[in-house]
């Protein structure tokens, strides 16, 4: 017993430190992804370019002349990379928190229809605003904000609808959850199709953008709008990490452990609607990031939300930067829509996950 105790005490105390290697790997991955994202592109491939540009921008090497390529790095690639980090982190954390809250590994904002709900809100607002701005030109400058707010509302409506459809007597029914997501998704696509039919050429291009997702519209302005909103939302989810952890054991257990479960669920649904709505408003539907990222982390570590939220944010950011860089480079100078790329990777992953869960739980979908 005594020897048992000694070895166990060693192992148990080791745990917080044993998470450090993964953390370091993720930080390094995020850094490398950003570096590649700023170095590669249609205009020029140069791995030293980001450093030269940064040195110039901060005034280290005495030059004041901005070359064309440095301008591209500073004002096009860099905000785009930061945008990808923010949106990737947001989607991954959203997926991780939804999975914890639903106690189900298949939860993801795009699969549950939250993303497409946000897209419906955004598309509806584009459609309305075009008519509205023609009548009242003064409203035109609130356009981007109005679209974001409409997207958040669309996301909130679908999040609450799916959540209530799937919950029966305090239990989440997995098939109902997925079916509700499928139903909401197809309803949203039908609605967007309706707007498609009514829209003119310019609106049509914008609408296609929502459905495929793109980081092409990134600018320092959009980064400066997204950063405080998503930063705050991510921090709010991270603050609820202990509550999500306890909810893994079931709602009754969480309640008995001192968590106000109903309040936390409501808060998490709203935060998720905010995250997904804002992300979709700026970059369109980028699917599967929220599903894949927490699962990759669970393969290498476990489900402890004390670490999973931060790790998801870093891996999600890194993966989306890499995916975006790939989408710019593969078909340069044209761009592949990033939503297609993440779905190409994510959908097979999702199918594999379904097969695994079917085997493990023996349920038939």
């Amino acid at each position, binding site marked *: 017993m005594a020897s*048992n105790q000694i070895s166990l005490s060693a192992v148990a*105390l080791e*745990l917080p430190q044993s998470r450090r290697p993964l953390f370091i790997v993720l930080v390094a991955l995020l850094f490398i992804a950003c570096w590649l994202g700023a170095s590669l592109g249609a205009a020029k491939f140069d791995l030293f370019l980001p450093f030269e540009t940064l040195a110039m921008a901060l005034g280290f090497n005495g030059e004041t002349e901005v070359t064309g390529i440095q301008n591209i790095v500073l004002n096009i690639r860099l905000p785009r990379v930061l945008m990808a980090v923010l949106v990737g982190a947001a989607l991954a954390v959203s997926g991780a928190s939804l999975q914890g809250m639903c106690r189900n*590994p298949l939860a993801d904002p795009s699969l549950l229809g939250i993303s497409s709900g946000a897209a419906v809100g955004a598309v509806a607002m584009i459609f309305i605003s075009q008519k509205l701005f023609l009548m009242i030109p003064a409203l035109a400058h609130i356009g981007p904000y109005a679209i974001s707010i409409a997207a958040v509302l669309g996301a909130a409506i679908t999040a609450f609808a799916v959540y209530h459809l799937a919950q029966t007597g305090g239990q989440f029914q997995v098939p109902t959850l997925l079916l509700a997501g499928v139903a909401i998704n197809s309803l949203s696509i039908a609605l967007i199709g309706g707007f498609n039919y009514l829209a003119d050429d310019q609106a049509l291009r914008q609408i296609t953008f929502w459905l495929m997702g793109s980081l092409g519209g990134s600018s320092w302005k959009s980064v400066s709008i997204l950063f405080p909103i998503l930063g705050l939302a991510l921090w709010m989810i991270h603050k609820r990490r202990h*509550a999500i952890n306890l909810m893994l054991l*079931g709602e009754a*257990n969480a309640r*008995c*452990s001192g968590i106000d479960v109903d309040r936390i669920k409501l808060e998490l649904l709203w935060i998720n609607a905010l995250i997904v709505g804002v992300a979709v408003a700026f970059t369109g539907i980028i699917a599967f990031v929220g599903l894949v990222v927490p699962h990759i982390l669970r393969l290498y570590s*476990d489900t402890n939300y004390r670490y999973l939220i931060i790790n998801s944010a870093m891996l999600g950011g890194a993966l989306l930067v890499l995916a975006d860089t790939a989408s710019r480079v593969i078909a340069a100078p044209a761009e592949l829509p990033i939503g297609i790329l993440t779905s190409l990777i994510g959908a097979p992953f999702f199918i594999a996950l379904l097969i695994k869960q079917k085997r493990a739980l023996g349920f038939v979908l």
Partner: protein
Amino acid sequence: MSLRIENLRVSVGNKCLLSDINIECQSDRFIGVIGANGAGKSTLLNVMAGLNAPSSGSVSIDDKDIFEYSASQLAKLRAVLPQHSDLSFPLNAIEVVRLALSLSSMNVSQQHDLLIDCMSRFNVLHLANQNYLTLSGGERQRVQLARVTAQLFSNQNHQEHQYLLLDEPISALDLYQQYQTLDALKLLAKEGVGVVAVLHDLNLASLYCDHLVVLKHGCISAQGSPKQVINENSLKSAFNIDVWLQAHPDTQAPFITPRISQ
């Protein structure tokens, strides 16, 4: 100072699940709740835990209604083990137990001592670094017992009276672990934690509990010490069984075995 249930009545629709329930649990007692399937044992435990609201009557801890406590205050006074505690994601056993400390402000070495203490009480220390999902049903049950115990112990304000509410804590355990676990619960009661457990094995309940509550169709058909409660008539009435009643050779506690009609 006690966990007290007064004139409790719980009904859902027209169906009355519990009525006229009066129980007082001191914080150094081990109370067993026994009764046939569907007698209302789990409902009683859920109401005592504050998970369900009573239709009338009250549940109070230290003379204060449990609905006047906040969820986090209540979590420091009582811990609850539901019948089923499932986890759908991988987590090591020690991390499952550590979940109980999520809301506490202990430092790492205090946490560590507490985890070791709670896990060794229920013989699960050797499972500390195994994935909870790979454990057997009985091992999971003991890990959960360690978790709810850790929840109470994480409250450093130990002068408060604390209670442990357990719904069938030994249902998945082998005989050896049943004895060990009941010993551990008895020890907890001696240390000042009131234990209320739903049990199915009447002989074990008789041996280990200080006080037994017999439920029948949502009412208390008998309560008192095992010697007062366990007899041929009460068991015939509550469980519809015919038994031989004997005395345990060591403790003289009532001991039953079924009558076999040829």
